[in-house]
């Protein structure tokens, strides 16, 4: 369906750092190289809807990621307009996207290159109708009014 994974950039974290290097590891994890940043920038613009999640839509590995996928599914976001990235498959992406978005948790949703938020925000927007408006405004899903007009015409 719509699976994608971001290949890690040449810049790599030394994950073999010992406990004594925790401080420098934290610093290293926070540092986002130009190349990694550019790569993530490309990823968030690669598709109208981009979701960074744990696991995949078929096999989410976290309740919050699963909820995010389900909400987008409810709005019938077409597969060709959505891309997901599994941060569990790429630890540099996992730390990189947190730095890039300045947001500490996964999942993270981008619509047309703009950060929308995480699971809580997504659910809140879904309940308030804001999410539907956002998806319609960004041409991800058609307006509901058009569909009901068509139904009325054919009934």
């Amino acid at each position: 369906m719509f699976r994608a994974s971001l290949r890690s950039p040449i810049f790599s974290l030394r994950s073999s750092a010992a406990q004594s290097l925790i401080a420098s590891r934290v610093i290293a994890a926070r540092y986002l190289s130009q190349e990694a940043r550019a790569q993530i920038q490309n990823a968030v613009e690669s598709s109208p809807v981009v979701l960074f999640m744990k696991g995949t839509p078929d096999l989410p590995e976290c309740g919050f990621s699963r909820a995010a996928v389900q909400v987008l599914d409810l709005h019938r976001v077409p597969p060709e307009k959505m891309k997901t990235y599994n941060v569990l498959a790429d630890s540099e992406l996992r730390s990189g996207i947190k730095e890039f978005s300045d947001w500490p948790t996964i999942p993270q949703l981008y619509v047309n290159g703009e950060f929308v938020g995480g699971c809580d925000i997504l659910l809140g927007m879904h309940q308030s109708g804001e999410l539907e408006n956002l998806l319609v405004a960004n041409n991800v899903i058609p307006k509901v009014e058009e569909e009901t007009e068509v139904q009325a015409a054919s009934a």
Partner: protein
Amino acid sequence: MISCCSHAQYIYCTVDSEEETLNKGSEAVHGLHKSQTRVLPAFRRISAMATASPSPSLGPIESVIRSKLLSSLQPAALVIHNDSYQHRHHAPMRAQDGGSGETHFSLEIVSDEFKGKTTMQRHRMIYSLLSEELDQGLHSLSLKTKTRAEAGIDTAST
């Protein structure tokens, strides 16, 4: 276990999500049902349950979360749920030996510091207050943020 403390204008509760302790705790909180322990307006003081100091069995991360949020946001209500137990089976948690037991929290905060801020701005406020903890053992934060008006708390005291 539920421990509650009332202090000045706010009440905060910490709720341990383990099923059996939650049930025991809710009996102890006079007449408040499980669902009612979630958001407590300031004017409802559980004076009988008031304790001068927090329960000693609260973990370090939870204590830090509480003290940081109390001092920065002066919340009218603050409910902290430790959901770590529900996530203990996750691979990353198992790899950490079940984790510290302080990895997943959900917070409900009522504070007028949120006035005029979008949900994202409110969440960013809390994330930046807790950025140190998020760099360490804290893995996940579920947030519900409201102003006093949104929570339906009268600004006039009764």
